[in-house]
Protein backbone atom coordinates (compact mmCIF):
# COMPACT_ATOMS: atom_id res chain seq x y z
CA UNK A 1 0.00 0.00 0.00
CA UNK A 2 1.64 3.22 -1.08
CA UNK A 3 0.41 6.77 -0.97
CA UNK A 4 -0.27 6.86 -4.70
CA UNK A 5 -3.09 4.35 -4.22
CA UNK A 6 -5.06 6.65 -1.95
CA UNK A 7 -8.07 8.36 -3.47
CA UNK A 8 -9.26 11.92 -2.92
CA UNK A 9 -12.92 12.40 -1.96
CA UNK A 10 -14.91 15.23 -3.42
CA UNK A 11 -18.24 16.10 -1.85
CA UNK A 12 -20.42 18.81 -3.30
CA UNK A 13 -23.85 20.14 -2.46
CA UNK A 14 -24.60 17.13 -0.29
CA UNK A 15 -28.03 17.45 1.31
CA UNK A 16 -30.04 15.07 3.44
CA UNK A 17 -33.17 16.02 5.30
CA UNK A 18 -35.38 14.13 7.69
CA UNK A 19 -38.70 15.90 7.47
CA UNK A 20 -37.96 19.58 8.02
CA UNK A 21 -34.65 18.85 9.73
CA UNK A 22 -31.48 19.08 7.67
CA UNK A 23 -28.94 16.44 8.69
CA UNK A 24 -26.74 17.68 5.86
CA UNK A 25 -27.25 21.12 4.39
CA UNK A 26 -25.41 21.63 1.10
CA UNK A 27 -22.06 20.34 2.31
CA UNK A 28 -19.04 20.93 0.08
CA UNK A 29 -15.85 19.23 1.17
CA UNK A 30 -12.67 18.07 -0.51
CA UNK A 31 -10.66 15.38 1.23
CA UNK A 32 -7.17 15.26 -0.17
CA UNK A 33 -5.59 12.02 -1.27
CA UNK A 34 -3.92 10.32 1.71
CA UNK A 35 -5.18 12.89 4.18
CA UNK A 36 -6.41 12.22 7.73
CA UNK A 37 -9.53 14.34 7.94
CA UNK A 38 -11.71 14.47 11.04
CA UNK A 39 -15.39 15.35 11.04
CA UNK A 40 -15.89 17.01 14.40
CA UNK A 41 -19.19 18.10 15.83
CA UNK A 42 -21.63 17.58 18.68
CA UNK A 43 -24.14 14.74 18.54
CA UNK A 44 -26.86 15.40 16.01
CA UNK A 45 -24.60 17.73 14.01
CA UNK A 46 -24.73 15.59 10.88
CA UNK A 47 -21.16 14.27 11.02
CA UNK A 48 -22.29 10.65 11.23
CA UNK A 49 -24.83 11.15 8.46
CA UNK A 50 -22.00 12.44 6.29
CA UNK A 51 -19.85 9.41 7.08
CA UNK A 52 -22.78 7.07 6.38
CA UNK A 53 -23.30 8.80 3.04
CA UNK A 54 -19.64 8.15 2.24
CA UNK A 55 -20.04 4.49 3.24
CA UNK A 56 -23.26 4.13 1.27
CA UNK A 57 -25.65 3.46 4.14
CA UNK A 58 -27.43 6.80 3.76
CA UNK A 59 -28.79 8.01 0.48
CA UNK A 60 -28.48 11.81 0.23
CA UNK A 61 -31.36 13.80 -1.25
CA UNK A 62 -29.10 15.87 -3.48
CA UNK A 63 -25.46 16.34 -4.21
CA UNK A 64 -22.51 14.39 -5.37
CA UNK A 65 -19.77 12.29 -3.81
CA UNK A 66 -16.78 11.31 -5.90
CA UNK A 67 -14.00 8.91 -5.01
CA UNK A 68 -11.29 10.06 -7.37
CA UNK A 69 -13.13 10.61 -10.64
CA UNK A 70 -15.94 8.17 -9.93
CA UNK A 71 -19.38 9.37 -8.87
CA UNK A 72 -20.52 6.96 -6.15
CA UNK A 73 -23.50 8.65 -4.57
CA UNK A 74 -25.92 5.90 -5.61
CA UNK A 75 -23.47 2.99 -5.45
CA UNK A 76 -24.38 0.28 -2.90
CA UNK A 77 -22.01 0.00 0.09
CA UNK A 78 -20.48 -3.35 -0.88
CA UNK A 79 -19.24 -2.02 -4.19
CA UNK A 80 -17.51 1.05 -2.79
CA UNK A 81 -14.43 -0.77 -1.56
CA UNK A 82 -13.96 1.39 1.51
CA UNK A 83 -12.74 0.06 4.83
CA UNK A 84 -14.95 1.02 7.74
CA UNK A 85 -14.46 0.83 11.50
CA UNK A 86 -17.58 1.08 13.65
CA UNK A 87 -18.10 2.59 17.06
CA UNK A 88 -18.97 -0.70 18.75
CA UNK A 89 -16.46 -2.73 16.67
CA UNK A 90 -19.21 -4.79 14.94
CA UNK A 91 -17.03 -7.90 14.95
CA UNK A 92 -18.63 -11.22 14.05
CA UNK A 93 -18.78 -13.14 17.35
CA UNK A 94 -19.44 -16.50 15.67
CA UNK A 95 -16.08 -16.39 13.90
CA UNK A 96 -12.48 -16.50 15.10
CA UNK A 97 -10.27 -13.42 14.91
CA UNK A 98 -8.63 -14.73 11.73
CA UNK A 99 -12.00 -15.50 10.12
CA UNK A 100 -13.17 -11.98 10.92
CA UNK A 101 -10.15 -10.45 9.28
CA UNK A 102 -10.33 -12.89 6.35
CA UNK A 103 -14.00 -12.08 5.68
CA UNK A 104 -13.43 -9.29 3.14
CA UNK A 105 -10.80 -11.44 1.40
CA UNK A 106 -13.20 -14.39 1.21
CA UNK A 107 -15.78 -12.14 -0.43
CA UNK A 108 -13.14 -11.03 -2.94
CA UNK A 109 -12.30 -14.68 -3.66
CA UNK A 110 -8.64 -14.26 -2.69
CA UNK A 111 -6.97 -17.74 -2.71
CA UNK A 112 -6.76 -19.26 0.77
CA UNK A 113 -2.97 -19.35 1.11
CA UNK A 114 -2.61 -15.74 0.00
CA UNK A 115 -5.47 -14.67 2.27
CA UNK A 116 -3.85 -16.35 5.29
CA UNK A 117 -0.67 -14.34 4.67
CA UNK A 118 -2.57 -11.07 4.32
CA UNK A 119 -4.57 -11.77 7.49
CA UNK A 120 -1.43 -12.44 9.51
CA UNK A 121 0.20 -9.30 8.16
CA UNK A 122 -2.85 -7.18 8.98
CA UNK A 123 -2.93 -8.61 12.50
CA UNK A 124 0.77 -7.84 12.91
CA UNK A 125 0.14 -4.29 11.71
CA UNK A 126 -2.29 -3.79 14.58
CA UNK A 127 0.07 -5.62 16.96
CA UNK A 128 -2.09 -8.72 17.29
CA UNK A 129 0.22 -11.19 15.53
CA UNK A 130 -0.61 -14.75 16.61
CA UNK A 131 -4.10 -13.90 17.85
CA UNK A 132 -5.82 -15.47 14.82
CA UNK A 133 -7.26 -18.48 16.60
CA UNK A 134 -8.79 -16.52 19.47
CA UNK A 135 -12.54 -16.15 19.84
CA UNK A 136 -13.92 -12.61 19.72
CA UNK A 137 -15.37 -13.04 23.22
CA UNK A 138 -11.88 -13.58 24.65
CA UNK A 139 -10.60 -10.18 23.56
CA UNK A 140 -10.44 -6.94 25.54
CA UNK A 141 -12.01 -3.75 24.20
CA UNK A 142 -8.73 -2.45 22.83
CA UNK A 143 -7.97 -5.77 21.13
CA UNK A 144 -11.45 -5.85 19.59
CA UNK A 145 -10.86 -2.40 18.15
CA UNK A 146 -7.56 -3.56 16.68
CA UNK A 147 -9.25 -6.57 15.07
CA UNK A 148 -11.92 -4.28 13.61
CA UNK A 149 -9.13 -2.12 12.23
CA UNK A 150 -7.25 -5.11 10.79
CA UNK A 151 -10.45 -6.29 9.12
CA UNK A 152 -10.97 -2.84 7.58
CA UNK A 153 -7.44 -2.55 6.16
CA UNK A 154 -6.66 -6.15 5.16
CA UNK A 155 -8.01 -5.70 1.63
CA UNK A 156 -6.01 -2.47 1.12
CA UNK A 157 -8.97 -0.15 0.64
CA UNK A 158 -8.06 3.23 -0.76
CA UNK A 159 -10.36 4.98 1.66
CA UNK A 160 -10.80 4.26 5.36
CA UNK A 161 -13.82 5.50 7.30
CA UNK A 162 -13.95 5.48 11.09
CA UNK A 163 -17.02 6.21 13.19
CA UNK A 164 -15.94 7.19 16.72
CA UNK A 165 -13.85 4.02 16.94
CA UNK A 166 -12.26 4.84 20.29
CA UNK A 167 -15.27 6.10 22.20
CA UNK A 168 -15.84 2.80 24.02
CA UNK A 169 -12.28 2.65 25.39
CA UNK A 170 -11.08 4.10 28.68
CA UNK A 171 -9.07 7.32 28.65
CA UNK A 172 -5.52 5.96 28.81
CA UNK A 173 -6.09 3.31 26.18
CA UNK A 174 -7.89 5.85 24.02
CA UNK A 175 -4.94 8.22 24.07
CA UNK A 176 -2.53 5.40 23.29
CA UNK A 177 -4.73 4.22 20.40
CA UNK A 178 -4.92 7.77 19.03
CA UNK A 179 -1.15 7.82 18.62
CA UNK A 180 -1.19 4.31 17.17
CA UNK A 181 -3.89 5.16 14.64
CA UNK A 182 -1.92 8.23 13.67
CA UNK A 183 1.23 6.15 13.06
CA UNK A 184 -0.76 3.54 11.20
CA UNK A 185 -2.16 6.21 8.93
CA UNK A 186 1.32 7.53 8.22
CA UNK A 187 2.43 4.00 7.36
CA UNK A 188 -0.54 2.97 5.19
CA UNK A 189 -1.33 6.37 3.72
CA UNK A 190 -4.96 5.69 2.85
CA UNK A 191 -7.35 8.62 2.72
CA UNK A 192 -9.00 8.55 6.14
CA UNK A 193 -12.22 10.17 7.28
CA UNK A 194 -12.62 9.99 11.03
CA UNK A 195 -15.73 10.98 12.98
CA UNK A 196 -15.54 12.12 16.58
CA UNK A 197 -17.24 14.46 19.01
CA UNK A 198 -14.07 14.61 21.11
CA UNK A 199 -12.24 17.84 20.25
CA UNK A 200 -8.97 16.76 21.86
CA UNK A 201 -8.99 13.56 19.82
CA UNK A 202 -9.57 15.58 16.66
CA UNK A 203 -6.73 17.99 17.51
CA UNK A 204 -4.38 15.09 18.28
CA UNK A 205 -4.92 12.99 15.19
CA UNK A 206 -5.96 15.03 12.21
CA UNK A 207 -4.23 16.64 9.26
CA UNK A 208 -7.33 18.76 8.93
CA UNK A 209 -10.53 19.10 10.89
CA UNK A 210 -13.95 19.78 9.43
CA UNK A 211 -16.16 21.24 12.13
CA UNK A 212 -19.79 20.43 11.48
CA UNK A 213 -22.91 21.77 13.15
CA UNK A 214 -26.58 21.77 12.12
CA UNK A 215 -25.61 19.83 9.00
CA UNK A 216 -23.31 22.58 7.79
CA UNK A 217 -19.57 22.76 7.42
CA UNK A 218 -18.47 25.53 9.82
CA UNK A 219 -14.73 25.52 9.29
CA UNK A 220 -12.20 23.32 7.52
CA UNK A 221 -8.66 23.86 8.65
CA UNK A 222 -5.57 22.39 10.24
CA UNK A 223 -5.97 21.65 13.98
CA UNK A 224 -3.80 24.61 15.00
CA UNK A 225 -5.83 27.01 12.89
CA UNK A 226 -9.11 25.61 14.19
CA UNK A 227 -7.98 26.09 17.77
CA UNK A 228 -6.18 29.39 17.43
CA UNK A 229 -8.33 31.05 14.78
CA UNK A 230 -11.90 29.78 15.27
CA UNK A 231 -14.19 31.17 12.59
CA UNK A 232 -17.21 31.68 14.80
CA UNK A 233 -18.56 31.51 18.29
CA UNK A 234 -19.76 27.91 17.99
CA UNK A 235 -16.27 26.65 17.14
CA UNK A 236 -14.60 28.76 19.83
CA UNK A 237 -17.03 27.34 22.40
CA UNK A 238 -16.93 23.75 21.17
CA UNK A 239 -13.15 23.48 20.93
CA UNK A 240 -11.26 24.45 24.05
CA UNK A 241 -12.46 26.95 26.62
CA UNK A 242 -13.23 30.51 25.66
CA UNK A 243 -14.56 33.69 27.10
CA UNK A 244 -16.24 36.18 24.78
CA UNK A 245 -15.86 39.91 25.30
CA UNK A 246 -18.23 42.17 23.39
CA UNK A 247 -16.40 45.00 21.59
CA UNK A 248 -17.53 48.43 20.50
CA UNK A 249 -16.47 49.82 17.18
CA UNK A 250 -15.33 53.45 17.27
CA UNK A 251 -14.14 54.68 13.91
CA UNK A 252 -11.39 52.33 12.82
CA UNK A 253 -10.77 51.20 16.41
CA UNK A 254 -12.14 48.56 18.73
CA UNK A 255 -12.87 49.26 22.39
CA UNK A 256 -13.58 47.00 25.31
CA UNK A 257 -15.20 48.69 28.33
CA UNK A 258 -13.93 52.03 27.11
CA UNK A 259 -10.32 50.91 26.63
CA UNK A 260 -8.91 50.71 23.16
CA UNK A 261 -7.72 47.31 21.97
CA UNK A 262 -4.34 46.74 20.35
CA UNK A 263 -5.07 44.63 17.28
CA UNK A 264 -2.91 43.61 14.34
CA UNK A 265 -5.75 44.41 11.98
CA UNK A 266 -9.39 45.39 12.34
CA UNK A 267 -11.75 43.43 10.15
CA UNK A 268 -14.52 45.24 8.31
CA UNK A 269 -18.18 44.60 8.77
CA UNK A 270 -20.37 43.59 11.65
CA UNK A 271 -20.00 43.90 15.39
CA UNK A 272 -17.18 41.85 16.79
CA UNK A 273 -16.39 39.87 19.91
CA UNK A 274 -12.99 39.06 21.31
CA UNK A 275 -12.30 35.37 21.93
CA UNK A 276 -10.01 34.81 24.89
CA UNK A 277 -8.48 31.42 25.68
CA UNK A 278 -7.64 31.02 29.40
CA UNK A 279 -4.04 29.98 28.70
CA UNK A 280 -3.36 33.01 26.50
CA UNK A 281 -3.90 35.45 29.34
CA UNK A 282 -1.14 36.30 31.76
CA UNK A 283 -1.37 37.92 35.16
CA UNK A 284 0.87 40.96 34.86
CA UNK A 285 3.27 41.86 37.64
CA UNK A 286 4.31 45.27 36.27
CA UNK A 287 7.42 44.13 34.40
CA UNK A 288 5.64 43.23 31.16
CA UNK A 289 5.87 45.72 28.33
CA UNK A 290 5.28 45.97 24.61
CA UNK A 291 2.22 45.57 22.48
CA UNK A 292 -0.02 44.07 25.13
CA UNK A 293 -3.66 44.63 25.93
CA UNK A 294 -4.34 45.11 29.60
CA UNK A 295 -7.60 44.16 31.29
CA UNK A 296 -7.94 45.21 34.92
CA UNK A 297 -10.19 43.11 37.13
CA UNK A 298 -10.82 41.54 40.53
CA UNK A 299 -9.96 37.93 41.39
CA UNK A 300 -13.21 36.10 42.12
CA UNK A 301 -12.03 32.55 42.60
CA UNK A 302 -8.91 30.38 42.43
CA UNK A 303 -9.20 26.68 41.47
CA UNK A 304 -6.24 24.36 41.86
CA UNK A 305 -6.35 21.67 39.15
CA UNK A 306 -3.07 19.82 39.60
CA UNK A 307 -1.16 20.68 36.44
CA UNK A 308 -2.55 24.21 36.35
CA UNK A 309 -4.35 26.73 38.49
CA UNK A 310 -7.42 28.44 37.15
CA UNK A 311 -8.25 31.97 38.25
CA UNK A 312 -11.64 33.57 37.62
CA UNK A 313 -11.37 37.31 37.28
CA UNK A 314 -14.29 39.75 37.10
CA UNK A 315 -13.58 42.44 34.50
CA UNK A 316 -14.73 46.06 34.45
CA UNK A 317 -17.94 45.26 32.52
CA UNK A 318 -18.84 42.47 34.95
CA UNK A 319 -17.75 39.56 32.71
CA UNK A 320 -16.05 36.67 34.49
CA UNK A 321 -13.00 35.53 32.59
CA UNK A 322 -10.88 32.43 33.19
CA UNK A 323 -7.10 32.64 33.37
CA UNK A 324 -5.08 29.47 33.27
CA UNK A 325 -1.61 29.69 34.70
CA UNK A 326 0.64 26.80 33.77
CA UNK A 327 3.97 25.83 35.33
CA UNK A 328 5.74 28.95 34.13
CA UNK A 329 3.57 31.49 35.84
CA UNK A 330 2.70 29.33 38.82
CA UNK A 331 4.83 31.60 40.97
CA UNK A 332 2.93 34.65 39.74
CA UNK A 333 -0.45 33.17 40.49
CA UNK A 334 0.56 32.05 43.96
CA UNK A 335 0.95 35.66 44.95
CA UNK A 336 -2.62 36.40 43.91
CA UNK A 337 -5.39 36.33 46.52
CA UNK A 338 -9.14 36.23 46.06
CA UNK A 339 -10.60 39.74 46.15
CA UNK A 340 -7.41 41.43 44.98
CA UNK A 341 -7.22 43.61 41.89
CA UNK A 342 -5.03 42.28 39.08
CA UNK A 343 -4.13 43.24 35.53
CA UNK A 344 -4.47 40.61 32.79
CA UNK A 345 -2.32 40.80 29.68
CA UNK A 346 -3.18 39.56 26.18
CA UNK A 347 -0.66 39.91 23.37
CA UNK A 348 -1.98 41.53 20.23
CA UNK A 349 -0.94 38.42 18.29
CA UNK A 350 -3.30 36.38 20.47
CA UNK A 351 -6.28 38.57 19.72
CA UNK A 352 -8.96 36.52 17.97
CA UNK A 353 -12.00 38.36 16.68
CA UNK A 354 -15.23 36.72 15.64
CA UNK A 355 -18.41 38.26 14.29
CA UNK A 356 -21.23 38.65 16.82
CA UNK A 357 -24.14 36.36 16.20
CA UNK A 358 -27.77 36.90 16.98
CA UNK A 359 -28.56 34.19 19.47
Amino acid at each position, binding site marked *: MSKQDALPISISGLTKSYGSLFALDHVDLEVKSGEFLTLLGPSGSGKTTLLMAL*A*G*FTRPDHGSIRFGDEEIVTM*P*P*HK*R*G*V*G*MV*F*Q*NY*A*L*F*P*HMSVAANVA*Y*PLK*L*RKVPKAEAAGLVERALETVQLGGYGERRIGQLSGGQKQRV*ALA*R*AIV*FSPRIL*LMDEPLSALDKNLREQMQIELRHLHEKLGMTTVYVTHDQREALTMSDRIAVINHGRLMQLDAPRRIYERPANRFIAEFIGESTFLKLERKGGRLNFAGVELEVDEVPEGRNLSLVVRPERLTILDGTDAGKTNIFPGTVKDLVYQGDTTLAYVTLADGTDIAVRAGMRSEAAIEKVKVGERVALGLKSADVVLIPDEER
Partner: protein
Amino acid sequence: MTNWLKRPASETQITHGQRLWLYFVATVIMILLVAPTIIVMPMSFSASQYLEFPPREWSLRWYEHYLSSPAWIDATWTSLKAGFLTMCVATPLGVAAAYGLHVSRHPLGQFFYIVLITPIMVPVILIAIAAFYVFVQIRLVNSLFGLVIAHSILALPLVLIVVSAALKSYDMNQEMAARSLGASRFTAFIGITLPQIRFSVLTAALLSFLTSFDEVIVAMFVSGGDNSTLTRNMFNALRDQIDPTIASISTIMIVISSTLLILSQLFGKSRD
Protein backbone atom coordinates in the same frame (compact mmCIF):
# COMPACT_ATOMS: atom_id res chain seq x y z
CA MET B 1 -33.09 -31.08 56.43
CA THR B 2 -33.56 -28.40 59.09
CA ASN B 3 -30.24 -26.97 57.97
CA TRP B 4 -31.50 -26.75 54.42
CA LEU B 5 -34.65 -24.96 55.59
CA LYS B 6 -32.54 -22.29 57.25
CA ARG B 7 -30.21 -21.72 54.32
CA PRO B 8 -30.86 -18.78 52.00
CA ALA B 9 -32.72 -19.75 48.84
CA SER B 10 -30.69 -17.59 46.50
CA GLU B 11 -28.76 -14.31 46.66
CA THR B 12 -31.34 -13.00 49.15
CA GLN B 13 -32.05 -13.21 52.85
CA ILE B 14 -35.06 -15.46 52.25
CA THR B 15 -34.55 -19.06 53.40
CA HIS B 16 -35.80 -22.24 51.81
CA GLY B 17 -38.14 -22.55 54.80
CA GLN B 18 -39.82 -19.26 53.97
CA ARG B 19 -40.10 -20.33 50.37
CA LEU B 20 -41.79 -23.68 51.05
CA TRP B 21 -45.21 -22.34 50.04
CA LEU B 22 -43.76 -21.27 46.68
CA TYR B 23 -42.28 -24.72 46.06
CA PHE B 24 -45.66 -26.25 46.90
CA VAL B 25 -47.61 -23.97 44.53
CA ALA B 26 -45.07 -24.49 41.75
CA THR B 27 -45.30 -28.28 42.15
CA VAL B 28 -49.11 -28.26 42.04
CA ILE B 29 -49.11 -26.11 38.91
CA MET B 30 -46.59 -28.34 37.18
CA ILE B 31 -48.65 -31.44 38.01
CA LEU B 32 -51.82 -29.80 36.71
CA LEU B 33 -50.05 -28.85 33.50
CA VAL B 34 -48.42 -32.18 32.83
CA ALA B 35 -50.81 -34.77 34.30
CA PRO B 36 -53.43 -34.71 31.51
CA THR B 37 -50.66 -35.33 29.01
CA ILE B 38 -49.01 -38.08 31.02
CA ILE B 39 -52.25 -39.89 31.84
CA VAL B 40 -52.81 -41.10 28.28
CA MET B 41 -49.53 -42.98 28.36
CA PRO B 42 -50.57 -45.79 30.75
CA MET B 43 -54.00 -45.83 29.08
CA SER B 44 -52.36 -46.61 25.76
CA PHE B 45 -50.83 -49.80 27.15
CA SER B 46 -54.19 -51.13 28.32
CA ALA B 47 -55.54 -54.47 27.09
CA SER B 48 -59.11 -53.29 27.48
CA GLN B 49 -61.56 -52.51 24.64
CA TYR B 50 -62.25 -49.11 26.15
CA LEU B 51 -60.24 -46.20 27.47
CA GLU B 52 -59.70 -46.84 31.16
CA PHE B 53 -57.46 -45.62 33.93
CA PRO B 54 -55.71 -47.23 35.57
CA PRO B 55 -55.56 -50.17 33.14
CA ARG B 56 -56.32 -53.57 34.69
CA GLU B 57 -54.25 -55.46 32.17
CA TRP B 58 -51.28 -54.39 30.05
CA SER B 59 -50.72 -55.00 26.34
CA LEU B 60 -49.31 -53.49 23.16
CA ARG B 61 -52.37 -54.42 21.10
CA TRP B 62 -53.43 -50.83 20.40
CA TYR B 63 -49.96 -49.97 19.09
CA GLU B 64 -50.20 -53.03 16.84
CA HIS B 65 -53.65 -51.96 15.77
CA TYR B 66 -52.36 -48.51 14.87
CA LEU B 67 -49.34 -49.74 12.98
CA SER B 68 -51.28 -52.31 11.00
CA SER B 69 -54.08 -49.96 9.99
CA PRO B 70 -53.47 -48.37 6.55
CA ALA B 71 -55.94 -45.58 7.35
CA TRP B 72 -54.01 -44.50 10.46
CA ILE B 73 -50.64 -44.80 8.75
CA ASP B 74 -51.81 -42.78 5.73
CA ALA B 75 -53.16 -40.12 8.03
CA THR B 76 -49.83 -40.05 9.90
CA TRP B 77 -47.96 -39.52 6.64
CA THR B 78 -50.36 -36.74 5.69
CA SER B 79 -49.76 -35.03 9.03
CA LEU B 80 -45.98 -35.37 8.74
CA LYS B 81 -46.00 -34.07 5.17
CA ALA B 82 -48.28 -31.16 6.08
CA GLY B 83 -46.10 -30.33 9.09
CA PHE B 84 -42.89 -30.45 7.07
CA LEU B 85 -44.29 -28.38 4.20
CA THR B 86 -45.83 -25.85 6.60
CA MET B 87 -42.41 -25.49 8.19
CA CYS B 88 -40.83 -24.99 4.76
CA VAL B 89 -43.36 -22.30 3.83
CA ALA B 90 -43.83 -20.44 7.11
CA THR B 91 -40.20 -20.29 8.26
CA PRO B 92 -38.64 -18.43 5.32
CA LEU B 93 -41.66 -16.17 4.97
CA GLY B 94 -41.72 -15.39 8.68
CA VAL B 95 -37.97 -14.79 8.85
CA ALA B 96 -38.16 -12.49 5.82
CA ALA B 97 -41.08 -10.58 7.35
CA ALA B 98 -39.33 -10.26 10.72
CA TYR B 99 -36.15 -9.02 9.05
CA GLY B 100 -38.00 -6.58 6.83
CA LEU B 101 -40.03 -5.13 9.69
CA HIS B 102 -36.93 -4.94 11.88
CA VAL B 103 -34.85 -3.06 9.34
CA SER B 104 -37.60 -0.86 7.93
CA ARG B 105 -38.29 2.50 9.47
CA HIS B 106 -41.61 2.64 7.68
CA PRO B 107 -44.26 4.40 9.77
CA LEU B 108 -46.67 1.52 9.10
CA GLY B 109 -44.18 -1.12 10.29
CA GLN B 110 -45.95 -1.67 13.59
CA PHE B 111 -49.28 -1.90 11.76
CA PHE B 112 -47.96 -4.59 9.41
CA TYR B 113 -46.61 -6.51 12.37
CA ILE B 114 -50.04 -6.59 13.97
CA VAL B 115 -51.69 -7.57 10.69
CA LEU B 116 -49.27 -10.48 10.35
CA ILE B 117 -49.92 -11.78 13.85
CA THR B 118 -53.75 -11.55 13.66
CA PRO B 119 -54.06 -15.28 12.86
CA ILE B 120 -53.11 -16.10 16.44
CA MET B 121 -55.41 -13.42 17.85
CA VAL B 122 -58.65 -14.38 16.11
CA PRO B 123 -60.37 -17.67 16.99
CA VAL B 124 -59.00 -20.51 14.89
CA ILE B 125 -62.51 -21.58 13.96
CA LEU B 126 -62.97 -18.30 12.05
CA ILE B 127 -59.83 -18.94 10.06
CA ALA B 128 -61.01 -22.50 9.44
CA ILE B 129 -64.41 -21.36 8.17
CA ALA B 130 -62.87 -18.61 6.03
CA ALA B 131 -60.29 -20.99 4.59
CA PHE B 132 -63.03 -23.54 3.86
CA TYR B 133 -65.16 -21.03 1.94
CA VAL B 134 -62.24 -19.76 -0.09
CA PHE B 135 -60.92 -23.26 -0.77
CA VAL B 136 -64.35 -24.40 -1.99
CA GLN B 137 -64.22 -21.62 -4.58
CA ILE B 138 -60.73 -22.46 -5.77
CA ARG B 139 -61.06 -26.25 -5.35
CA LEU B 140 -58.45 -26.67 -2.66
CA VAL B 141 -60.63 -28.47 -0.10
CA ASN B 142 -59.20 -31.88 0.85
CA SER B 143 -55.90 -31.09 -0.86
CA LEU B 144 -52.54 -31.20 0.87
CA PHE B 145 -51.61 -27.90 -0.76
CA GLY B 146 -54.65 -26.14 0.72
CA LEU B 147 -53.96 -27.61 4.14
CA VAL B 148 -50.36 -26.38 4.04
CA ILE B 149 -51.50 -22.88 3.06
CA ALA B 150 -54.01 -22.75 5.90
CA HIS B 151 -51.51 -24.10 8.42
CA SER B 152 -48.85 -21.67 7.23
CA ILE B 153 -51.22 -18.81 8.03
CA LEU B 154 -51.36 -20.10 11.60
CA ALA B 155 -47.62 -20.74 11.85
CA LEU B 156 -46.35 -17.50 10.34
CA PRO B 157 -47.13 -15.31 13.39
CA LEU B 158 -45.14 -17.63 15.64
CA VAL B 159 -42.12 -17.46 13.35
CA LEU B 160 -42.48 -13.69 13.16
CA ILE B 161 -42.65 -13.27 16.94
CA VAL B 162 -39.74 -15.59 17.72
CA VAL B 163 -37.43 -14.21 15.03
CA SER B 164 -38.34 -10.56 15.71
CA ALA B 165 -37.37 -11.07 19.34
CA ALA B 166 -34.04 -12.55 18.26
CA LEU B 167 -33.32 -9.66 15.91
CA LYS B 168 -34.02 -7.15 18.68
CA SER B 169 -31.03 -8.40 20.62
CA TYR B 170 -28.84 -8.72 17.53
CA ASP B 171 -26.40 -5.95 16.64
CA MET B 172 -27.36 -4.84 13.13
CA ASN B 173 -24.05 -2.98 12.84
CA GLN B 174 -22.47 -6.34 12.12
CA GLU B 175 -24.46 -6.57 8.93
CA MET B 176 -23.42 -3.02 8.02
CA ALA B 177 -19.80 -3.96 8.69
CA ALA B 178 -20.15 -6.99 6.43
CA ARG B 179 -21.64 -4.84 3.70
CA SER B 180 -18.87 -2.27 3.97
CA LEU B 181 -16.40 -5.16 3.63
CA GLY B 182 -17.91 -6.19 0.31
CA ALA B 183 -20.92 -8.39 1.08
CA SER B 184 -24.24 -7.74 -0.62
CA ARG B 185 -27.17 -7.43 1.73
CA PHE B 186 -28.24 -11.01 1.08
CA THR B 187 -24.72 -12.41 1.53
CA ALA B 188 -24.37 -10.44 4.75
CA PHE B 189 -27.67 -11.82 6.05
CA ILE B 190 -26.83 -15.44 5.17
CA GLY B 191 -23.22 -15.32 6.36
CA ILE B 192 -23.39 -13.04 9.38
CA THR B 193 -26.92 -12.52 10.70
CA LEU B 194 -28.48 -15.93 10.11
CA PRO B 195 -25.78 -17.96 11.92
CA GLN B 196 -26.27 -15.77 14.97
CA ILE B 197 -30.06 -16.05 15.11
CA ARG B 198 -30.08 -19.70 14.04
CA PHE B 199 -31.33 -20.94 17.38
CA SER B 200 -34.43 -18.77 17.11
CA VAL B 201 -34.95 -19.71 13.48
CA LEU B 202 -34.72 -23.42 14.39
CA THR B 203 -37.17 -22.90 17.24
CA ALA B 204 -39.49 -21.06 14.87
CA ALA B 205 -39.23 -23.87 12.30
CA LEU B 206 -40.03 -26.42 14.98
CA LEU B 207 -43.00 -24.42 16.20
CA SER B 208 -44.37 -24.17 12.68
CA PHE B 209 -44.03 -27.92 12.24
CA LEU B 210 -45.84 -28.53 15.52
CA THR B 211 -48.49 -25.90 14.72
CA SER B 212 -49.49 -27.96 11.71
CA PHE B 213 -48.86 -31.40 13.22
CA ASP B 214 -51.01 -30.74 16.32
CA GLU B 215 -53.70 -28.70 14.59
CA VAL B 216 -57.24 -30.11 14.41
CA ILE B 217 -59.80 -27.34 13.80
CA VAL B 218 -58.58 -26.14 10.41
CA ALA B 219 -57.86 -29.74 9.46
CA MET B 220 -61.50 -30.67 10.26
CA PHE B 221 -62.66 -28.15 7.66
CA VAL B 222 -60.13 -28.31 4.86
CA SER B 223 -58.57 -31.77 5.02
CA GLY B 224 -60.32 -34.98 4.16
CA GLY B 225 -60.37 -38.05 1.96
CA ASP B 226 -56.88 -39.25 1.15
CA ASN B 227 -55.47 -36.14 2.76
CA SER B 228 -57.06 -36.50 6.21
CA THR B 229 -54.66 -35.63 8.96
CA LEU B 230 -53.95 -37.75 12.00
CA THR B 231 -55.59 -35.29 14.37
CA ARG B 232 -58.73 -35.12 12.22
CA ASN B 233 -59.03 -38.90 12.20
CA MET B 234 -58.42 -39.05 15.94
CA PHE B 235 -61.20 -36.56 16.53
CA ASN B 236 -63.56 -38.57 14.35
CA ALA B 237 -62.52 -41.80 16.02
CA LEU B 238 -63.27 -40.33 19.44
CA ARG B 239 -66.73 -39.39 18.26
CA ASP B 240 -67.49 -42.76 16.71
CA GLN B 241 -65.84 -45.32 18.96
CA ILE B 242 -63.86 -44.85 22.15
CA ASP B 243 -60.89 -47.00 21.44
CA PRO B 244 -57.45 -46.96 23.10
CA THR B 245 -55.79 -46.63 19.65
CA ILE B 246 -56.24 -42.90 20.23
CA ALA B 247 -54.21 -43.13 23.42
CA SER B 248 -51.38 -44.96 21.68
CA ILE B 249 -51.32 -42.41 18.85
CA SER B 250 -51.35 -39.59 21.40
CA THR B 251 -48.45 -41.17 23.19
CA ILE B 252 -46.49 -41.36 19.95
CA MET B 253 -47.28 -37.71 19.18
CA ILE B 254 -46.26 -36.61 22.66
CA VAL B 255 -42.96 -38.43 22.28
CA ILE B 256 -42.31 -36.84 18.86
CA SER B 257 -43.19 -33.32 20.05
CA SER B 258 -41.22 -33.58 23.29
CA THR B 259 -38.20 -34.99 21.48
CA LEU B 260 -38.20 -32.10 19.05
CA LEU B 261 -38.57 -29.57 21.85
CA ILE B 262 -35.79 -31.16 23.89
CA LEU B 263 -33.54 -31.20 20.81
CA SER B 264 -34.20 -27.52 20.24
CA GLN B 265 -33.30 -26.77 23.86
CA LEU B 266 -30.04 -28.69 23.45
CA PHE B 267 -29.26 -26.66 20.33
CA GLY B 268 -29.89 -23.56 22.41
CA LYS B 269 -27.46 -24.66 25.10
CA SER B 270 -24.63 -25.11 22.63
CA ARG B 271 -25.18 -21.77 20.98
CA ASP B 272 -22.41 -19.90 22.78
